């Protein structure tokens, strides 16, 4: 398999994103990461939800499932559970991942399912033309909050750390090289990895490129990613907004956990540890 970048682009489908959209940078960064890792396109499944970020799965020449709003994570969990041999990438926007689909996050974290989730956060619902989202700041005027948003915005990274997602990182669409590096690390991480990518919308600029550029800063050099307390402290900082790998720990993946259950089941039911035949299983109901 050649590693030339265009091999990961699905040629028949052109992106629908507005020109200047942060998602182009993310797509470019992800393509670079895939090139670095040399993942064969046919061994990869990209699952996405609804929204501008949900279109991500259209543009990579892999197996791709663009499903319903908010359900990318449980769909991907089914994919990875039955086919651990496949590389699974999940993409969703802030609405898809933290609004309608937010309830699935802690449970994927509990399973430590081995996949990489990219949350493309632009602080707004772009595809429906600029309503307030779970990460829209309090008081912000949007189409659905003409007098200012009445809610607090979610602080994404501390939530992910509290759920004990085993790999938590942040980057921005402004830094393609950093996306490539962080996404590579996330995809190599055995277990559930989330990369929170701040990706400003040019048409509904709730998250403004300029303000973002002024505030982003790489994590302090001495930060050790297995230190959750330190990671939390850095995650709460809003100025500067740190980027890089906040947290990374090793714990058994869902596949390893299920394999373990399988072994103990076989030990219990067959002396030699060999799988029983279907008729012999049915005979247990006689």
């Amino acid at each position, binding site marked *: 398999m050649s590693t030339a970048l265009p091999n990961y682009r699905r040629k028949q489908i052109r992106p629908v994103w507005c020109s200047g959209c942060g998602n182009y940078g993310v797509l470019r960064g992800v393509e670079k990461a895939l090139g670095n890792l040399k993942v064969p396109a046919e061994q990869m499944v990209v699952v996405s939800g609804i929204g501008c970020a949900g279109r991500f799965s259209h543009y990579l020449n892999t197996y791709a499932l663009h499903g319903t709003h908010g359900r990318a994570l449980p*769909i991907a969990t*089914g994919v990875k559970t*039955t086919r651990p041999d496949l590389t699974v990438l999940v993409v969703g926007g802030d609405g898809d991942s933290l609004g309608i689909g937010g309830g699935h996050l802690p449970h994927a974290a509990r399973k430590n399912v081995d996949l990489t989730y990219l949350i493309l956060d632009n602080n707004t619902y772009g595809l429906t033309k600029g309503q307030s989202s779970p990460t829209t700041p309090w008081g912000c005027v949007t189409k659905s909050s003409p007098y200012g948003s009445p809610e607090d915005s979610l602080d994404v990274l501390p939530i992910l750390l509290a759920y004990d997602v085993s790999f938590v990182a942040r980057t921005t669409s402004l830094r393609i090289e950093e996306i490539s590096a962080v996404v590579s690390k996330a995809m190599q991480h055995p277990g559930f990895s989330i990369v929170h990518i701040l990706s400003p919308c040019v048409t509904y600029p709730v998250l403004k490129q300029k303000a973002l550029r002024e505030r982003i800063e790489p994590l302090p050099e001495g930060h050790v990613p297995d230190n959750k307390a330190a990671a939390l402290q850095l995650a709460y900082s809003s100025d500067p907004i740190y980027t890089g790998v906040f947290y990374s720990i090793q714990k058994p993946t869902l596949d390893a956990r299920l394999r373990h259950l399988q072994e103990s089941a076989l030990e219990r039911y067959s002396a030699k540890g060999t799988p029983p035949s279907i008729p012999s299983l049915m005979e247990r109901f006689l």
Partner: protein
Amino acid sequence: MTSGKKSFHSEVDFILRIAGEGGEGVISCGELFARAAARTEYHVFTFLTYPAEIRGGFAMVQIRVRDWTIYSMGSKLDCLVVFNQQAFDRTIKELKKGGTLVYDPQAVQLPPDLEATLLALPLTELSKEATGSVLGKNIVALGALGHLVEMEQRVLENLVRDRFASKGAEVIKRNMEALRLGYAYAAEQAWRRILLMADLRPKGSQYMMLSGNEAIALGALVAGCRFTASYPITPATPIFETLTRLFPLVDGRALQMEDEIAAVSAALGASFVGEKALVPTSGPGFQLMTEQLNLASMLEVPLVLVDVQRGGPSTGLPTKTEQSDLNLAIYGVSGESPRIVLAPTSVEDSFYQTIRAFNLSERYQLPVIMLTDQSIGLRKATVRMPDLSHIIQLDSHVARTKVKIPQPEFINLIDRAEPTAKELEDYRRFRITADGVSPIARPGTPGGQYLATGLEHTESGKPDYTPENHLQMSRKRFRKMEVIARSFDTNPIEIWGRADAKIGILGWGSTAGAIREARYLAEERGIHVRHMHPHTLSPMPHRQISNFLVRLEHLIIVEENYTGQFAHHIKAHFGVKAIELHKCEGIPITPEEILRGIEKVAGIIDEYSIAKL
């Protein structure tokens, strides 16, 4: 014991009910009894209802033992065992005149004029003597019943030992004592035996004792399903519990998810990458899953969903039975998306229809919904062991044939068609074909990469909202339904009774047995009835149903719901008038209730003069 009704060719037909309070072990007492009876050559059929709460509330189990195939739970009871006053008050009207009543004299006040054989059994007292608590009442009752039907004590001892095996030697010992006291008390009081089971030949090994839910789990196993995802919901949970126990042994995987939406999503994901996946649930869970089922129709991904229906609407009657999710199964969707709806008629049929559901789903790449209900799902029945040495795996490329209904001697399996090397050269996942089915590439296959999107898409999977494309792809998806409907018309005809009968009964799902027995009862009274019971509710075997309807003068449609959903469906499709017989009480309809309906119709000259019975 009752002597047989001659037209059933039945010598033994015995109906026992045990009733008490939830948590008293009433149901486990009944299950142990049923299990012992199932080891004889008799057929066994159970029906149970328990309170939604773990403890407290009314619980009962009914067991029918017969020397011939059993089609329903029967009507009146030959023997009733009651643990308390509430159980007595609620069930005594079900006891036959002259039937046998076993009751705890400490807990039950009898009215003076009961026409029954009364057998007092001091359950509480004997339980305390054996176990030091009231927890052994059910096992004392089991012992006394063992005497009453002349069941060998050794058989019950073995079952009780198995049941309490995990609880330690002390618990086993106490329960053995409870069992012994029950037997001894009945013997001392010289209770006259009401059934003789001890002399019966033990049955060969060819019968399983299964609940409908277990039958579905085993059907999935045989069909090659190796993934299930679920969220606990009464009364469907045992399907997942059975699979999660069996799957690790056969390299399958079961995930309990955080909610029903996640469960069906995970199953969809598993099926997308090539695994056969089952989603068991009940009505309230099913309605949460409809969005993903819709997606499965759009992505043309195979998926099998089982709805073990319970009383609704909303939380409704979680532990009771009802046939009220038919509309949801057929129509519950935004937009128009093809799906197949099947309805098994019995525990045994649940096994075969599950295999059929997987075959249809794989063959036509769309979701299949199976509607069972609490009464089939939780009851246990003897099921003949199928011949698994004759499973034939059909080649999906050659076999553009129809999917046959599996039978004990004959099980076919079919997997989804994958693209050939030639098809991969210019792979179009949603290519328009003669039957609407296009080969589906399994992830990992080089050159097969495609986009599956819930947006309207072209043959190659690219989003496309043009008028021509939407029409063309809608046609493609619904062409499958036309092909399926035509293939259903060539299935074996599901009609019983004399061809010249003027009264016809149409039913679906779990009412099949009760309707069949009602037909026998009617025939004994000289009323001929024709009975049709389609297994496929959508798309319907149109020609078969038309042929059935056209010969009738009176049509009765039987179903267990309030509004007559199936009747609406039939009337809409065939433009016929029907007399609707509904039961909406959370319990299965009985043969006698249906017989009363048939008798009324037989006595009516002009059926148009009434709307409903």
